[in-house]
C-alpha cells in the first residue's frame, strides 16, 4: 500500500448496463451490505438488482404537505378571526373558502422543501470528499462507465475475494480503491 493512503474497498468497472446488472445481482447474492453502484444516469432495474427498499420520500413529502396546509389554515384562522378580526357588514371572520389558495400554496411549499431536505440527507449530499475521487474513478462514473464498489467496512470484505467476485460476475476491470489521508482539500 502506498504512502499516505488507505484501502477503502474494491471497485469493479463495467462498460454496459447488462454487465452492471449481473455484477450487482451477484454482489447482492453474496450477502454484501456495505456496497454501492455508481452510474452516470439512473439505470432501470438496478434498484431491484441491488435489492434497495422503496424510498421513504413520498410519505415524508405527503406528511410535510399536510403539515403545511394545517399551518396555513391555523395561521389564517388565528390572524383573521382571533387576533385581528376585521368586522365588515357582519361577514364571517373565519371565511375558509378565501383561505383555500394559501392553504394549497403552503401544502406545495412545505412538501417541496421537505423533498429537498430528504434528497440532501438520504442521498448523503454535502460530503464532497470520496475515495472515488482519490482513485480516479469518479470521472469515469459521471461520464460513461458503471462501477460496483465493495467497501472495506463490510463484514464479508477481504480484498482478494471481493476482487474475484467482481471479476467473476462481469466487471471488465477490477481495481483496489484507495482513500487519501486527510490533507485539508475539499474534494
Amino acid at each position: 500500500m502506498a504512502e499516505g493512503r488507505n484501502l477503502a474497498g474494491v471497485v469493479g468497472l463495467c462498460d454496459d448496463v447488462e454487465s452492471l446488472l449481473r455484477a450487482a445481482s451477484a454482489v447482492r447474492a453474496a450477502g454484501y451490505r456495505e456496497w454501492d453502484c455508481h452510474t452516470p444516469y439512473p439505470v432501470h432495474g438496478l434498484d431491484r438488482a441491488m435489492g434497495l427498499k422503496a424510498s421513504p420520500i413520498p410519505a415524508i413529502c405527503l406528511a410535510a404537505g399536510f403539515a403545511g396546509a394545517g399551518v396555513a389554515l391555523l395561521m389564517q384562522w388565528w390572524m383573521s378571526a382571533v387576533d385581528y378580526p376585521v368586522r365588515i357588514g357582519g361577514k364571517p371572520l373565519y371565511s375558509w373558502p378565501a383561505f383555500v389558495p394559501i392553504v394549497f400554496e403552503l401544502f406545495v411549499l412545505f412538501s417541496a422543501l421537505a423533498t429537498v431536505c430528504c434528497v440532501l440527507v438520504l442521498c448523503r449530499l454535502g460530503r464532497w470528499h470520496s475515495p472515488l475521487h482519490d482513485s480516479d474513478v469518479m470521472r469515469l462514473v459521471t461520464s460513461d462507465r458503471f462501477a460496483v464498489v465493495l467497501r472495506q467496512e463490510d463484514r464479508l470484505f477481504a480484498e482478494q475475494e471481493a476482487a474475484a467476485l467482481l471479476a467473476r460476475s462481469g466487471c471488465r476491470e477490477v481495481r483496489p480503491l484507495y482513500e487519501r489521508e486527510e490533507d485539508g482539500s475539499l474534494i
Partner: protein
Amino acid sequence: MTPESAVVAVSSLEAGPLVLGEVDFRKLEDDINRPLESFPTRRWWIAISCTGLLAALFVYAFLHTVFTGIGAWGNNNPVGWAWDITNFVFWIGIGHAGTLISAILFLLRQRWRTAIARFAEAMTVFAVICALQFPLVHTGRPWLAYWLLPLPNANGIWVNFRSPLLWDVFAVSTYGTVSFLFWYTGLLPDLATVRDRARHGLRRTIYGILSLGWQGSNRAWSHYEKAYLLFAGLSTPLVLSVHSVVSFDFATSVIPGWHATIFPPYFVAGAIFSGFAMVATLIVIMRKFFRLEHVVTEDHLDVMNRIIIATSLMVGYAYATEVFIAWYSGAAYERYVFVNRAFGHYAWAYWTMVACNVVIPQVLWIRKVRRTVLLLYPVVILVNVGMWFERFVIVVTSLHRDYLPSSWDVFSPTWVDVSLFVGSIGVFLTLMLLFARFLPAVSLAETKAILPGSQPRARQGARPGGDGHG
C-alpha cells in the same frame, strides 16, 4: 381520455430518434459542455454586452422610480395599474412553459422533453425573477416589501388573507422557490459531470461545491428519482394555481372586463402559449450558436409549434367567449368595455393582440413552417408581442373607462415605463446568456438515459416514473 391518448399527436416523436447522428456518451458530453469549457465566442461577448446595457437601463429606471416615486410612470387615476402589472403577468406567463415542459410532460412520459427541459426550467426561474421586480417597484418603497408577509409587528395588525393580492404573494413566492429547487435538483448530477471534466483546480472546486458532492451512487439515484417525480407532481398543480391566482387579481374585482369566471383557464392557456413561444424564440438561437442541432432537432421545434397552435386556439376561443358573454349578459358596462376595446382609443392594441395571437399562428398548421427556423421565427416573436398586448389590453382598457365618465382618462407610458420593460428583457437575456455559458443547457444525465443502448434491453422504454428517469 387517458393522458397518453391526449398527447398522441405530440408523441409521434417517440417513433424517431431523439438525438440525431452517431452519438455516444462522450460525444454528447463534449457537445453539450463545449460552451462551458471553451472561451466565450465573440458573438457571446457582443450579445452579453447588449443585454448587459439593457439590464443596466433596468437598474437605472428602477432606481429612478424609487427616488422619484411612481409618478415617474404614466399611471394615473383611474389607470392605477398599467405597464407594471402588464409586465408582471407577462413574465410570470413566460415562466409557465418551463414548468409545463419539465413537470407535466415528465408525468405524461414525453421523452422528447429531455432536450429542452433544462433550458425551459432556467427560463422559468429567470422569468419569475423579472416578474417579481414589477410588483416590488410598484409598491414604491421596495425596502418595505416584507410588509406583504404575515409578520408580527408593533401595530398588532395582520395582512388581509381575503385579498387575492396576498394570495399572489404566496403563489408567486412558492412558485419561484419550487421552480428554483426543481431546476437545481435536476442540475446536481450534471454539475458533478462538469466537476469531473474540469482540468483546472479552481473550476473543479467551484463545480464540486455546487454539485454538493454528487457521486452517481445508485442508492442516491433511487431517492433522487422519487424526489424528481414528486417535484414534477407538485409543480403540475402549482403551475396551474399560480396563473389562476394571478387571474384572481382581476377576476375578483368588480371592474367590467375583469370580473369574469373564464379568467383562470384563459390565463393558464395564455401563459403556456406565451411561454412556449419564448422557449422557441430562445432555443432556436441557442441550438444554432452552440451547435446543438442534433440534440434539439427539428422534431422538437415541430412539437413545440403544435403546442403553440393548440394554445393559440384556446386563447382565441377565450377571446370569442369573452365577447359573446359581454353581449349575452346584457350588462351595459360589460358590453361597453368590449366595444371600447375593439373600436375605442386602444383598438390598435386589441387588434394587434388578435392578429398576433389568433390569426398569425394559424400558419403553423403547415408542416414546413413548423420545421423551418426562418419561417417559424417571425411567428413566435409575434406571439410574444401579442401576449404582451393581451395583458396590456386587459389591464389598461378596462381601467381607463370605468363606471364614472368624469374620471375617464387615457394612459400613455413615459420613458421610465418603457425602460423598465425593455430593461427587464435585458435582465432576462443576460441571465440566460450566463446560464448558457456556465451551466449545461441540456440535461446530460437525462439525455444519456435515452440514448440507444443506455438501458437494459428487457426494460428499454420502461416507465420513466417507475424507477427510471426520462
